[in-house]
């Protein structure tokens, strides 16, 4: 019993590491724009499909695939920013969100046109047996996922809190008008934040498809939903909250799947979000989200 709890927690933390990266990307974009980017997951999917396509046609190796995934994600993210968010800055939040949904549709259809099968194999991160630690098993790709996520978080922290660009980003998050008056080129910061968030998403997307060893067109919706859920659970707009939200979501899913099965796993995660929102717990509703 206790062993199961610990094993589930281990699995939950590795899954949660990817969710945390998705949530960080959402939070960065939400922080500077006050908008949810529904096309965030589909843009990541675009990168993953670009990598899968390259692998199928040219048989590229793991590292090159990672680079292609991230580059594709950033490219798609820039397209989304230009078409959905740059024109609506200071304008309608709903219009921006619906526009990002429209591009989601584009990415999804593009994926199914270029690669019409429902499922494609993706080269696995690691094929060997899992690590045995007494009664527990640790998947090597899970460990790689966790380590990469921690490294990505550390890098993000360094960028945000130790670089001039990071200072500008935090200024735009706290006081966009004052940041603009202080001479910060806000539109240019926004473009780069989008690129940064898409790169984070690309890392997470690559880790997810490489550890699952397969890719389907559901990836876009899946990563948007997981990222939104983790971001909301941790408190909208807070970067440490996004990491905690991602880990919490991973843990909740792992435990509820073990005890109640896969359908209840999703039900419980959504129920928790609904109840926390309805109860207006303090950490979730402090940021304005018009």
């Amino acid at each position: 019993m206790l062993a199961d709890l610990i094993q589930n927690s281990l699995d939950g933390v590795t899954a949660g590491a990817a969710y945390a990266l998705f949530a960080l990307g959402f939070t960065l974009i939400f922080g500077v724009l006050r908008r949810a980017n529904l096309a965030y997951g589909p843009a990541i999917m675009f990168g993953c499909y670009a990598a899968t396509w390259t692998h199928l046609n040219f048989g590229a190796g793991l590292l090159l695939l990672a680079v292609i995934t991230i580059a594709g994600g950033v490219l798609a993210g820039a397209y989304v920013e230009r078409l959905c968010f740059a024109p609506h800055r200071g304008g309608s939040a709903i219009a921006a969100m619906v526009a990002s949904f429209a591009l989601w549709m584009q990415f999804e259809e593009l994926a199914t046109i270029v690669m019409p099968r429902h499922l494609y194999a993706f080269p696995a991160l690691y094929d060997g047996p899992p690590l045995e630690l007494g009664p527990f098993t640790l998947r090597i790709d899970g460990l790689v996922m966790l380590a990469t996520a921690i490294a990505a978080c550390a890098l993000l922290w360094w960028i945000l809190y130790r670089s001039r660009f990071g200072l500008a980003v935090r200024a735009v998050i706290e006081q966009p008008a004052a940041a603009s008056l202080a001479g910060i080129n806000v539109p240019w910061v926004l473009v780069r934040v989008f690129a940064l968030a898409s790169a984070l998403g690309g890392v997470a997307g690559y880790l997810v498809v490489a550890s699952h060893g397969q890719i389907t067109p559901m990836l876009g919706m899946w990563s948007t939903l997981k990222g939104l859920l983790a971001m909301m659970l941790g408190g909208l707009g807070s970067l440490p909250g996004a990491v905690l939200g991602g880990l919490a979501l991973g843990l909740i899913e792992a435990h509820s799947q073990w005890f109640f099965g896969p359908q209840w796993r999703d039900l419980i995660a959504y129920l928790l979000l609904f109840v926390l929102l309805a109860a207006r717990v303090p950490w979730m509703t402090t940021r304005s989200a018009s």
Partner: protein
Amino acid sequence: MDDYAIGVLTNIGLFSFLALSAYLLLVAGEMSFGQQAFFGVGAYAGGILTALYGWPLPLAALAAMALGALAQFLVGLPTLRLRGLYFAMATLAAAEMFRILFELFHWRVERNGELAGPDGTQGFRGIRWIFEHGIEPVHYLILVYALLAVILLLLVWVERSRLGAVLRGVGLDPELAASVGIDVQKAKLGVAAAAGALAALGGVLYAHHNTYIEPRNFDIMLGVHSLAYALIGGLGTAFGPLLGVLLDIGVLEGTRFFHGYRMIVFGGLVAVLLVFRPRGLLDERMVLWIRRRFS
């Protein structure tokens, strides 16, 4: 008219109910990602009542609408005080819960010697009331549009009344509305119940048109589509959402011209359109211009 055209036209009518329910909430200032849930509630409730218990369709539709209104009222009660993305996410969470509950929902009843009814992820087949009662597809089409016309007349009448002004006031500036004595929460709950009933009516008609429904029909895709219909059509008049549905299903699917590339064309079109008209084609200004021109 051939069957294909009738099917496309019927679908435009059906999804207009859902788009109108998203529109009602948008006018009252709330963005819902969850209208598909109440469409699903209507579809399941209506289908169960006619196919399993032999109710006549009109009675089943009324019951389903009441259930849809109740469901959205109950979801709205704890969530309508939330603003913007918080409300959107709460409705998304609620709708996904409904979808998963449909997956877990088994209600098998023996009917004419075999088991019928919702069977979890296997879906719910045999909602055949309109075939059993010899209703031609054309007649069903007319029925759908007659109901839509009634709803539209009702909405136009409401928008011209004091109630309409109250709703737009609540949507545009809730603080200001409250300061002139409008009970914002009550107004929004009323809108929520009406939106739930509308979505459920669309769901009943959808279930009986298709004869088969499954939980996957009522996923987030449907919900965001209805939101997009309302927004591209325009928030100035109840005819806006219809225009949105017509553009998507009618022009693109009806012509089959963009076969295979439909969402790429439509998605790009929507994004570019919203750059120039963030409140849709028939926004408030356009509606005013049309009114001046023709009165």
